[in-house]
């Protein structure tokens, strides 16, 4: 008999670990990428295209030095590509609304999920394999920094679930 177990902090199959080596591993990764590419034509995962488009807009619009008139740094390419990787890794099973993507004045990129003024989660992506996050959950607040390697930090997923639970 097979028993179904809940996985509360699962990362997406779109962000499977990429730690294999050799020809077989490359072929497997290629096959998985093809399958994921097929998924992304569906409407649900197609929302990631909207996020990628918004990210591209932000990257272009805020690519100049001092874009805020107060000495802001341009959005870095590293932050852009790391945000692309973050979007790719977002699990579709959470059925999240689209985040608002915006520039930080230190050249990083923020993704914000907003319910109301006291229920909001922000992740700030540096391009240096680290994610700063902060959230308000009613009277409670959280913040911290997580290493962003091959998959999304579970604490981010846990707090996204918390925001919309």
């Amino acid at each position, binding site marked *: 008999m097979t028993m179904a177990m809940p996985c509360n902090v699962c990362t997406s199959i779109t962000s499977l670990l990429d730690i294999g080596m050799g020809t077989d591993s490359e072929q497997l990764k290629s096959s998985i990428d093809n399958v994921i590419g097929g998924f992304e034509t569906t409407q649900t995962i197609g929302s990631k295209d909207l996020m990628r488009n918004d990210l591209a807009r*932000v990257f272009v619009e805020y690519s100049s030095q001092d*874009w*805020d*008139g*107060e*000495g*802001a*740094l341009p959005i870095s390419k590293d932050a852009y590509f790391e945000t692309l990787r973050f979007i790719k890794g977002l699990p579709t099973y959470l059925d999240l609304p689209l985040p*608002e993507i*915006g*520039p*930080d*004045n*230190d050249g990083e990129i*923020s993704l*914000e999920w*907003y319910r109301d*003024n*006291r229920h*909001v989660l*922000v992740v*700030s992506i540096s391009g240096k394999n680290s994610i*700063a*996050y*902060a*959230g*308000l959950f009613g009277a409670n*607040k*959280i*913040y*911290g*920094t997580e290493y962003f390697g091959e998959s999304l930090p579970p604490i981010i997923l846990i707090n996204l679930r918390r925001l919309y639970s």
Partner: protein
Amino acid sequence: MSEPINTFEHLTRFIVDRNYFRANHTIKHQAFMPNRAGKTSVCRISGITDNQIWEIGAEVARIRVKPLFGRADIRVFNVLSKSLLVVPTNPPPIRHADIVGWPEDKPKRISIAQELAAETHLTPVPESQPNPPENPSRI
């Protein structure tokens, strides 16, 4: 010489970027994040008229070469309650002050900026104000 800050004064942060507020006129944390010098620029607005406030806002937008979308008013008390300080500075622009004392840690800065943002909202530039090409009240 600038007058000392009073706990009960009101401040405003002029909003000069469309990514600093949401469609429902709430304010995002980015509006209050400090610049690279660790300062968030604000204007002391107690005791002056709305027209005077918008005139200063137009001047701030001109200096920054940005459109003025509106402003986000907060009380000095709200800033001090987050272990930050408000320091008056010499003009220009007039009635200027800086919010300082931000922690080094970025997640903490975001968290504080989120709370400040949650305690205010966007007041759009009035129609009568001869400014910006991108006024959210006209979008």
